């Protein structure tokens, strides 16, 4: 190993960038640890000690001859699921491990991988479609679906444009569920024949941390107890915030 320490440092910080992006795009704790570990061995490390929880990464890379590098990374960005980015970054790490990339190429490829992936309009369509479809799925009519879809697009707008203005997701969820609840209750009150519960259920599918909750239980079952517990507590509080927002909206309208 004649590589200089600076070179190894450069490599490891790119590996951490990739790990952080994977986590923010919706990757599992397992996957992030595994990716950094494999990349380290592909670089030529003798030993890799990687510890990842949802908010932080700690890595020590042993290069032999008493030479080692330790880096930590605090992950502050909130989860914004982007599976296209996730697979791109995954491909970059695979290519690196297969020996197809040098360290300089790795950095370039990583920067290419995190470019924005889709037009926002697709996400609005996705939110509207999901809310509308689930309103019918749980027993609503086509009119319920239309109202749910409209508010679904509004939720998407809140999540994309406004969530960064709030200090934490809990406050954001209380307020957005309150606004959505108020809007849906008012519409259902003045237009007869709509099923308030079905519309709200369709929109709740977009707001509930169902995926986060399931992932957290899965993390616990797989053995990542710390991350799992953190996410579980987070998602239960999140669901509570959601309920609080809706309850206040109900009280005001009825």
């Amino acid at each position, binding site marked *: 190993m004649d590589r200089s320490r600076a070179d190894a440092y450069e490599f490891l910080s790119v590996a951490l960038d990739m790990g952080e992006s994977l986590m923010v795009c919706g990757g599992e704790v397992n996957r992030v640890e595994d990716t950094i570990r494999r990349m380290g061995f592909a670089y030529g490390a003798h030993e890799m000690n990687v510890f990842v929880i949802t908010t932080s990464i700690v890595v020590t890379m042993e290069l032999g001859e008493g030479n080692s590098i330790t880096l930590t990374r605090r992950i502050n960005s909130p989860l914004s699921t982007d599976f296209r980015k996730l697979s791109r970054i995954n491909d970059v790490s695979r290519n690196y491990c297969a020996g197809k990339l040098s360290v300089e190429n790795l950095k370039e490829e990583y920067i290419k991988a995190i470019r924005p992936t889709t037009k926002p309009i697709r996400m609005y369509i996705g939110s509207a479609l999901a809310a509308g479809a689930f309103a019918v799925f749980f027993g609503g009519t086509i009119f319920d679906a239309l109202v749910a879809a409209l508010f679904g697009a509004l939720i998407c707008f809140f999540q994309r444009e406004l969530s960064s203005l709030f200090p934490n997701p809990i406050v954001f969820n209380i307020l957005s569920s309150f606004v959505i609840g108020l809007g849906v209750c008012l519409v259902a009150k003045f237009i007869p024949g709509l099923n308030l519960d079905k519309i709200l259920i369709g929109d709740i599918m977009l707001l509930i941390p*169902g995926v986060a909750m399931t992932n957290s239980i899965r993390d616990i079952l797989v053995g990542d107890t710390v991350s799992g517990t953190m996410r579980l507590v987070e998602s239960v509080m999140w669901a509570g915030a959601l309920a609080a927002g809706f309850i206040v909206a109900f009280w005001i309208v009825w």
Partner: protein
Amino acid sequence: MSIWIQILTAALGSIGFALLYRLRPEHLPLAAVGGAITWGVYLLVLKYTENIFAAALIATVLCTFYAEILSKLQKTPATVLLIPSVIPLIPGSALYYTMSSLVQRDLIQAWYFARLTIQYALAIALGISLVWTIWAVLFQRKNQQRDN
């Protein structure tokens, strides 16, 4: 008839979430089929066992196998196809009725729906972990070779 509407809307809902989670366009039909399979299997098992937990568990197991196999073929991480496909089982309505029962101060009903919500979440998590464990055992040797 309403069964087919449910399966169709499950597939549409999965496409919606696939768009929201920014899947590649060519993966959207796979997510739709995944959602339809998940809900179809759930309804089928529910019909014969009348047990929500068992139905959700078996549906998740099949859905996870579906996602694992396809993701190997498509060379993409398994979560990418798994999460949109398993969405129809996420207990949105149970959570809503827990909330609305609480507002109406009907604690017995609220507890019933809260238990239902937990049952779904546990069944999904258990199903995924089960398949992953089987998968890890099956492919372990190959992975270890890659490490060394």
